[in-house]
């Protein structure tokens, strides 16, 4: 589903290489986790995949379901089925959460040649998904992420994911800032979306999240590369011993 080959990325503004040859492929129906020390390039990978400005791909490729992602505008990547739950969701004063979500859903549907969702159906859909994530109606009325607590912002990301039903979901530290109960709700939200046609890439620092969202494959990223790949046990190893052993091993 998601194929990343030898991806090299530098900052556009300065001569700084951040990704130094990332190879990764996520199959449909699977959950892959990425762990790795701060600053190793995990968020950069997610930004580059979703099309954020400021990065230059100097080598390699990334494709989603056979389509070259790197050539597409961010909105086309979304319509093609890519979704990134941000590590730091963005506040947009003046744009209502509902307006935003409905515009996004209908724009994606339009891009795919599907009919727009009516206001009534949309409302029903969002209410149902919001309820499952314990997001109250008051929050939906507010401007996008404005005045939301850290955990509310993360839940709002998952709500968007639940409504947009993307094919490839990238979650960047969605667990950070969540209390224990919220973590459970969010994980249930994610698990509800798991199916044979959908792939997940879950970036996290903690085993805790992976207790709820059970990964099939775990990768360790360090200094802009995937340095080790293994099964769920790899995450446990990191939890217990930190990165020193693994990094020492590969050095």
């Amino acid at each position, binding site marked *: 589903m998601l194929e990343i080959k030898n991806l090299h990325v530098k900052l556009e503004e300065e001569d700084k290489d951040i990704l130094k040859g990332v190879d990764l492929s996520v199959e449909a129906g699977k959950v892959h986790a990425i762990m790795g020390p701060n600053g190793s390039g995990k968020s950069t990978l997610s930004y580059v995949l*979703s*099309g*954020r*400005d400021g990065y230059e791909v100097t080598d390699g490729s990334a494709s989603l379901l056979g389509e070259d992602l790197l050539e597409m*505008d*961010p*909105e086309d*990547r*979304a*319509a093609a089925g890519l*979704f*990134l739950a*941000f590590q730091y*969701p*963005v*506040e*947009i*004063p*003046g*744009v209502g959460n509902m*307006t*935003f*979500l409905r*515009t*996004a*859903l209908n*724009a*994606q549907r339009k*891009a795919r040649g599907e009919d727009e969702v009516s206001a009534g159906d949309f409302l029903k859909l969002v209410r149902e998904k919001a309820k499952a994530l314990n997001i109250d109606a008051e929050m939906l009325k507010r*401007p*996008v992420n404005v005045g939301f607590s850290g955990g509310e912002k993360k839940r709002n990301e998952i709500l*968007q994911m639940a409504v*947009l039903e993307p094919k490839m979901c990238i979650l960047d530290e969605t667990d950070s800032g969540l209390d224990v109960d919220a973590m459970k709700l969010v994980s249930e939200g994610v698990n509800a979306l798991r199916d044979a046609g959908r792939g997940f890439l879950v970036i996290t620092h903690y085993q805790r999240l992976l207790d709820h969202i059970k990964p099939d494959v775990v990768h360790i990223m360090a200094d802009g590369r995937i340095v080790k790949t293994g099964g769920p046990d790899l995450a446990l190893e990191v939890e217990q011993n930190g990165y020193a052993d693994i990094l020492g091993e590969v050095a």
Partner: protein
Amino acid sequence: MALPQAKLDLTEARLAALSLPDGAGWANAARADAVARLRAMGLPTRRDEYWKFTSPETLTRADAPRAALFHGDETPLYAGIDRLKIVFVDGVFDADQSDDLSLEHVSIEHLADVTATDIHWARELYGQLEIAGQDPVDRPLATLNTAFARDGVVIRVTGKVEKPISLVYLNASESSDAILHHLVRVEAGGDVTVLENGPAAARFNKVMEISVADGAAFHHVRAQGRDHERRAVTHMFARLGRESTYKSFTLTANGVLTRNEHVIELTGDDAVAHVAGAAMGDGARAEFHHDDTVFITHDAERCESRQVFKKVLRNGAEGVFQGKILVKPGAQKTDGYQISQALMLDDESSFQGKPELEIYADDVVCSHGSTTGAIDETALYYLRSRGVPADQATDLLVLAFLAEAIDEIEDARLQDDIRTRLQEWLERRRQG
């Protein structure tokens, strides 16, 4: 002081192209006085400090530059709102297209009729607020209006008027040069909403003098629409009594040249004046230059004034804001607020802001700010990452930016109407 020769020539050339309306009545004296005042001050030129950011050349020259007529197929603004419609075509009242002018708690007449009458309340108002508004800055185009306006509505409000009075300006000629002068007197306890919209004329000079008595309220919502090539200069002169309210909002899209002036005097304690404007300029199809010039004088205690002006500019559009709050000696507990912001969608557009405070009382709260900014790239990326195309995402951010000004409209239906219209304009633009 003798005027510079160029100014003299300019003024005489303009005067030569105009003729005073004939007819008897008190207005003759007011008009003659205005002509004399105009000769003394001269028409504005770019050299005048007050016109530093806006060239008045096309507003002052003898003949109006042509403007292509705009034929929109959109639903007329305020269409769903029960209102009393008064239609002007090229600056001339059109009885056939207008509603019957009778409405409870208000009398509505024509300027042409009342000026011919010897005794009429309008006599005490006509030109008077315009004259008061000449100090400390000359506003010669308003004086020209007082001298030569042939038409306008004369409205006297004595209670709460149930539906808005809607002035609709249509144009039929590509070279129409319209001058309208409206008078509004809201008596104690009166409450009225005046709406304005429509293309008006190739060149439009409009003055509205508004006297708001103690405890009375005046609401104003105006849309200056999609007639790309128009040139307009408008003045709203208001004088507010004790505990009275004045609230005005203007939506502007397009227009080669628009200068909207508000001159408001708070003369009774506890009066409130809010003026707001949302302007969207795109220089691609025709030039766009929009100037909001506001002068608010606090001359009583505990009054509140609020100015909220937002402009979205692209493709070489030019925006100007000159806003002044003058707090006179003794106007204690004044609360003055002023914000002017421009959102620049590219590097070709420009914005000039000149916020000013002049305060002669010691116990006041006044704040002002003027900012220019680009679109928030992070927000744009976030929206796009959810599948919203770049141009549509930009529009969402544009609407969000203008929201603070639109929120100033008190009546929810009018607010909805204006917001919907704005969305339609943005959508049309996107679809080319």
